[in-house]
């Protein structure tokens, strides 16, 4: 029961307090690039979440039961990126076969997930801070929830942003970063939640 509570608290902490985009800085490229479509931001979030959780679940045993006993722990980055690339490919193939309609709407985002640093970031972080399997999964789930939340919120803001008169020099990426800064400030308020 205690572990379960710690697990849930860890998910909340990774999703809100230590948010993946706004305080750990992973996945900023996709955050800025995802555009102003609320629906496609949710699709992107779902696809990234799936890959993050699967990659964390596969890389944990791979690292602890294969690379470490074999004495090649320094290969972790190469192994992780290969797992992620394969995973993205497999997800694409499976989706094409069984869920063609979902593949239609998600298809263009899939190859981009390989180079989304949120995925590799979570895996590297799990390895670097020696988390056990439960906490590693909590990190993966919390991070994906946080990522989806932030890109969804940003897409909603972006709709308004495009209707407003932004100074010419701030159009595009600069104003996106300023919005991210304001969002990060709002999320800083969540640090008050004691975990």
């Amino acid at each position, binding site marked *: 029961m205690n572990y379960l509570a710690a697990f849930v608290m860890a998910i909340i902490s990774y999703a809100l307090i230590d948010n993946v985009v*706004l*305080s*750990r*800085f*992973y*996945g*900023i*490229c996709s955050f*800025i690039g995802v555009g102003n479509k609320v629906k496609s931001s949710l699709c992107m979030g779902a696809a990234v979440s799936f890959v993050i959780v699967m990659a964390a679940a596969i890389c944990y045993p791979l690292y602890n039961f294969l690379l470490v006993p074999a004495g090649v722990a*320094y*290969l*972790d*980055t*190469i192994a992780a*990126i*290969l797992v992620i*690339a394969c995973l993205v490919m497999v997800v694409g193939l499976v989706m094409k076969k069984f869920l063609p309609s979902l593949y239609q709407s998600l298809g263009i985002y899939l190859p981009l997930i*390989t*180079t*989304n*640093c949120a995925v*590799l*970031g979570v895996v*590297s*972080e799990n390895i*670097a801070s020696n988390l056990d399997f439960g906490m590693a999964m909590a990190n993966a789930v919390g991070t994906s929830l946080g990522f989806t939340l932030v890109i969804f919120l940003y897409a909603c803001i972006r709709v308004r942003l495009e209707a407003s008169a932004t*100074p*010419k*020099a*701030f159009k595009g*990426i*600069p*104003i*996106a*970063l*300023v919005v*991210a*800064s*304001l969002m*990060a*400030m709002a999320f*800083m308020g969540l640090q008050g939640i004691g975990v």
Partner: protein
Amino acid sequence: MCPALAVTKTLEASFGMGVLFTLVLVCSNVLISALRKIIPEEVKTPAYIVVIATFVTLVKMFSEAFLPELYSTLGVFVSLLVVNCIVLGRAEAYASKNTVVDSLLDGIGNGIGYTIAICIIGLIREILGSGMLTFGATFTFIADLNGGEKIRLPILKVPGSDYDLSMQFFSSPAGGFLVLGITLAIIIAVTNYRQNKAKVDARIAAKKAKEAAK
């Protein structure tokens, strides 16, 4: 772009990141352009990623051995060089089509440009955030040369006095986003201004030429 925010809290860490980035970019550019005729078109991207990952692992081990402070400051962002858009982008756009020497120069040029850019962000954030520039915290050998003391340049804050204009906000993630956004906007504004000026100058010159012809 991600490391441009995460590691730019201080000037030293930014510079270290820039150097590691340049090393990875130059090595992977050279190897990829050397192998450009061997790597088949279909598995291009995975092959590039493996090459880059190899060099990232080497650089990681190098920094862990010789600059442990830098390694612990940068943390997982050294590993994240694997998925850095610029490294992969230069591999795809340049190294896969050009000779080894050209790719080497391209890697050095882009690496230096990136280092300067993140150093500027790091400089602004360190001065505003902590009020002073510290040397020797990340590159410990600087402190060793100085007899084990870190070198501190007080700018907005003098330790031990009431003078303190530093704003911790700029050390926080939110401050990082803000500094990067405003710096980008300034760069865009200057570029726009120059382009407009060039256009206006050209128009004036054309008008004068017309009048002279009359």
